[in-house]
């Protein structure tokens, strides 16, 4: 923590030194000052002009039905809530001063939940939290070179279902509804040699607010971006300390006024995922990392979106994930899960092994469980300037399960939004989308000032 504070202070000091030596963000001449008093007034005015904030207050209720699957027998293992009420205050503060960009995003949350489970019956739970989800100090060292340190949700790439080229985040925030992606700690240097090219050097120094399984490993990446007249592309090479290297890339093409085509992918040696493996334990199998760790593995997203003249945009996306389970592995996985579920309520020693196994099957350390997915989406974000409608169908092509999602956001005046969403998972308990929830409804209100 001390090291991080030192880094932030160093950036601030470096910026002030540069500012005092005359390096300024814009090259416009500044009016001559007649004295120290005038300088102070100008500096204060610059701070006032550069400061900005937005506060969003959200209140929303959720009703969901946990699926009675082998992963979560009688909702006793995961203890998912049936009813939830959330209240969140999300202020964003920003200051641009000379060479600096500062931002901080503190969060205040309060959540109440009602949980129905097999052995515990009906229970309620409530908890509040105060934390800083993101903050950033950025200094423009040179007109073409900027460095930053802070807690960010660093996202990129055109992929909707996932952003495989991003070695830092599994979630890309596009599937969640009103949920924020937790920030992680980064040091970044971005060099912009021309309008078309930029090179980013990124170090992920701490997991920040991101939840991780196991010890945190530092990750370093070099990202090279190109933006042309109607296309763009990026190459991302990364190295995770004491782990593996990855090569990611993405590209997009504005094929016409209405049609966008894109692709994104990554390649790596081996897999960090857990796979069902024969074992001498009572279940005859356990979740283990792959024995051979040098096969070339990858993940790829290809897609396109088309905007109709009437306004709606349709998106079709296909995802291939070689790290996911093939049919034999999936059969082994579900069989193991079922054995663990059968032994879960066992009064003897087997229940301990069952809990351990279900912990591993719940988090197999893979972005997706299987290999082939298809997404079809309809978005009309501007119906009479007040209504935004989204409809989405996500299909696991390997096990046949799917997820239907729909949302409506109604803008009321300049400050208020009313929103509702519904998610239905189709497929049995031994499918990916049928594992956790049968359905979920969210109804809420957002006020911004």
């Amino acid at each position, binding site marked *: 923590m001390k090291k991080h504070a030192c880094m932030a202070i160093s950036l601030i000091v470096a910026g002030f030194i540069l500012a005092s030596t005359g390096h300024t963000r*814009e*090259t*416009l001449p500044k009016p001559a000052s007649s004295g120290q008093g005038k300088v102070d007034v100008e500096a204060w005015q610059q701070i006032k002009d550069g400061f900005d904030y*937005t506060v*969003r207050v959200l209140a929303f209720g959720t009703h969901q039905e946990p699926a009675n699957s082998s992963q979560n027998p009688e909702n006793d293992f995961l203890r998912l809530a049936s009813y939830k009420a959330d209240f969140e205050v999300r202020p*964003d503060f*920003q200051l641009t001063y000379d060479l600096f*960009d500062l*931002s901080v995003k503190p969060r205040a949350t309060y959540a109440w939940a009602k949980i129905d489970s097999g052995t515990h019956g009906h229970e309620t739970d409530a908890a509040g939290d105060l934390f800083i989800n993101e903050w*950033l100090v*950025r200094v*423009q060292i040179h*007109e*073409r070179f*900027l460095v930053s340190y802070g807690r*960010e949700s660093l*996202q*990129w790439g055109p992929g909707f279902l996932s*952003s495989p080229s991003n070695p830092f985040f599994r979630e*890309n*925030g*596009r599937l969640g509804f*009103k949920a*924020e*992606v937790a920030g992680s700690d980064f040091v970044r240097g*971005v060099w*912009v040699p*021309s309008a078309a090219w*930029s090179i*980013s050097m990124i170090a992920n120094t701490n997991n920040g607010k991101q939840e991780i399984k196991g010890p945190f490993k530092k990750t370093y990446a070099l990202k090279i*971006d190109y*933006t*042309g*007249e*109607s*296309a*763009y592309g990026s190459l991302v090479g990364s190295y995770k300390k004491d782990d593996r290297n990855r090569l990611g890339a993405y590209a*997009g093409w*504005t094929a*016409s*006024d*209405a*049609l966008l085509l894109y692709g994104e992918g990554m390649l790596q040696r081996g897999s960090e995922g857990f796979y069902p493996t024969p074992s001498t334990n009572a279940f005859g199998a356990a979740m283990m990392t792959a024995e051979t760790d040098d096969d070339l593995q990858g993940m790829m997203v290809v897609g396109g*979106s088309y905007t109709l*003249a009437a*306004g709606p*945009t349709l998106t079709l996306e296909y995802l291939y994930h070689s790290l996911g389970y093939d049919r034999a592995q999936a059969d082994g996985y579900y069989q193991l899960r079922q054995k663990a579920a059968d032994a879960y309520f066992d009064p003897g020693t087997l229940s301990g092994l069952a809990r351990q196994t279900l912990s591993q099957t719940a988090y197999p350390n893979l972005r997706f469980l299987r290999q082939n997915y298809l997404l079809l989406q309809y978005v009309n974000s*501007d119906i*009479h*300037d*007040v209504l935004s409608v989204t409809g989405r169908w996500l299909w696991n092509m390997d096990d046949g399960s799917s997820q239907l999602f729909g949302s409506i956001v109604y*803008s009321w*005046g*300049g*400050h*208020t*939004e009313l929103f509702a969403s519904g998610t239905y998972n189709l497929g049995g308990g031994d499918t990916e989308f049928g594992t956790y929830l049968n359905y979920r409804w969210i109804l809420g209100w*957002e006020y*911004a*000032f």
Partner: protein
Amino acid sequence: MKRIKLIIMCFGVSFLLVGLFSRPVVAELAPREVLKKSDRARGNLSGIEWMIKIDAREDGRKQKRKLHLKSRDVNSLAEFTAPAKVKGRKLLMRDRNMWFIKPGLKKPVPISPRQKLMGGASNGDIASTNYAGDYEIAKAAEEEINGEPCYLFDLKATDKKVTYDRIRYWISKKRLVGVKAAFYTVSGKMFKTATFEYGNQIQVDGNVYPFVSKMEITDALIKQNVTTLYYSHVKPKTISDAAFNLNLLVR
């Protein structure tokens, strides 16, 4: 009395001669040069920023937005500043590539130029205009708009990547600014018209030029649907490449 008639005749002949032998300077310009100069008055400069207030009236509903726009050549960055519910949203236009950034939704989303911004305005409408680069002049004529002599250019898109396939564009012969435009779909149907006012001024290389202050877009089918863009706080300034870099926009 004879003397007065003689004076009037002399004046008349003088005006006739001046009319015959003097031609407006702008008429010397090639049509593409005229188009280029009209682009300058709509933001196609080496660096400029301005504020836009959008008032949209659609099907009896009224909506307002305020944006701060930075533009350089074919790159623009628009940041929504009001109302509060849209504050912080950003629209980055790198030539034909566009991204939308929403606070909370951290990932920049690639979007098409056709996607609607608000009311009758498309994303492409708030960006600087590059008609000279994106269109060829299929036909040139002359016509008066509100008594003002204008060139009338029939512009045809040079490729299919632009927001409008065809534009009929009226450019003032005297002021060299676009005063009216009619926008057509690929099927040849006119779907909206726009009129422009130039109450702003900018100084470039020591010369003062008019700059757009108002753009009023009217739906071709439902005439009551009108979206008005007001431009203010226009400032030519140096804007670095970093200002349009996607890696630096989300913070």
